[in-house]
């Protein structure tokens, strides 16, 4: 394929505007750059983790317009004109989110590696269903894996957070 365009591969930069944790970012990305790498390496937000790298474990979960996505397999340009929330953006004015408080109080984490993804997925759940049943929590969260297998405490933490949020 004698296409002069191919020689330019590597040179294509896509200017995008996105909001990350409420802050507008204007950056240029190459088509192959993944959202996880942009957020971790260029914006310095290292809460989201690269783990399975195949959209199974949920450690790289970010919220895109409020919905959980696997940032390890999402091209960064797809975030253009959209809003990204990472775990770093969850606390407001130095106050932890009720989910963060509940995970601490209830021991909803062991090694902590899956926790940013767990909490962000749980936030998406509570945003659309503020008082989920245990069954609904399990159904929504079943794509987030805790290798320490601390699921019981995670579910308890989410129920506790839902209770806290109802009170306020």
């Amino acid at each position, binding site marked *: 394929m004698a296409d002069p365009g*191919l020689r330019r591969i590597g040179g294509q930069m*896509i200017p995008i505007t996105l909001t990350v944790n409420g802050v507008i970012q204007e950056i240029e990305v190459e088509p192959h750059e993944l959202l996880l790498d942009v957020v971790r390496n260029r914006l310095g937000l290292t809460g989201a983790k690269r783990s399975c*790298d195949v959209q199974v474990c949920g450690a790289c979960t970010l919220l895109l317009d409020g919905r959980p996505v696997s940032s390890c397999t999402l091209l960064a340009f797809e975030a253009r004109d959209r809003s990204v929330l990472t775990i770093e953006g969850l606390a407001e004015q130095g106050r932890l989110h009720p989910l963060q408080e509940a995970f601490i109080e209830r021991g909803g984490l062991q090694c902590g590696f899956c926790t940013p993804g767990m909490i962000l997925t749980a936030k998406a759940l509570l945003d659309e269903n503020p008082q989920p049943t245990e069954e609904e929590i399990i159904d929504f969260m079943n794509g987030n894996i805790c290798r320490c297998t601390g699921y019981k405490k995670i579910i308890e933490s989410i129920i506790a957070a839902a209770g806290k949020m109802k009170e306020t």
Partner: protein
Amino acid sequence: MLRRFYLEEPERVQEASDLLARYGESAKAYAGGTELLLAMKEGLVHYERLINIKKIPGLDQVKLEDGAIRIGALSTHRKLAGSPLLQERLPALVRMEQNVANIRVREVGTLGGNLSFAEPHADPGTLLLVLGTRLVAEKASSKREIPMERFFVGAYETCLEPDELLTEIHVPLQPAGSSLVYLKFGYLERPSVGLALFLAFNERERSIAEARLAVGCVGPTPRRIDEAEGMFRGKGVKEAASLISRAGEIAGHASDAIGDLHGSQDYKEHIVQVLLKRAFHHACGKLQEAGKGRGELHG
């Protein structure tokens, strides 16, 4: 690691098709990327160009037209899982979509992408096979309809031409007095066995007017199991129930199961038999519920 590629963002089907024709095997249509990007990250395939087709308007609609549900190929699994129209008309499809992979995959993955990628371990193809589904494939100058039965050619291989895009999935409305069940089994990330059973009943005679059975995930492509379907047609429900073990055995053998990480051939054939029994009882149970009040007929 994802190698570099060039991105094209056409806004019309014709433009996308032209690009695919022009760049041939060095280019690939890209929608949700949930399957394609994994294969590219693993280095199993590489394309110098991805054609992002998500800027083409109008391909993510779900509507009822001329007695068929028309699903735009760019509809995400999440959208289908929450579609009121599908919930009313085809609840078994909604339930299947609610259980595709996980919430993050459903958020970005599309039905058209799922079918076009033809990953053997997938749910939708198997279910669509028992519904008389037709797929609309478009390219720059023409448009054709492909019966679901002819779409999958092999593992990761469809009958789409290199410059054709899957644009719509047409599912005819199912007749009253019919029952549809999709069951899957698996303990890995992807389903190991999927089975879809459609039964239409002759209400007065309590007999089975039409039976369609498909098995997926166990071999290279999902497939209809004509051999077992024939055993049910025209039979009373009780008589069909007495044949179910034999039908399951035949379905297992006919499913093209191959031994792999998900289990041996024998094991998969056995699971097919178990799932067929369960699906049959679900399907007949639903009919009874429907008879008591206006219950769910197709779910």
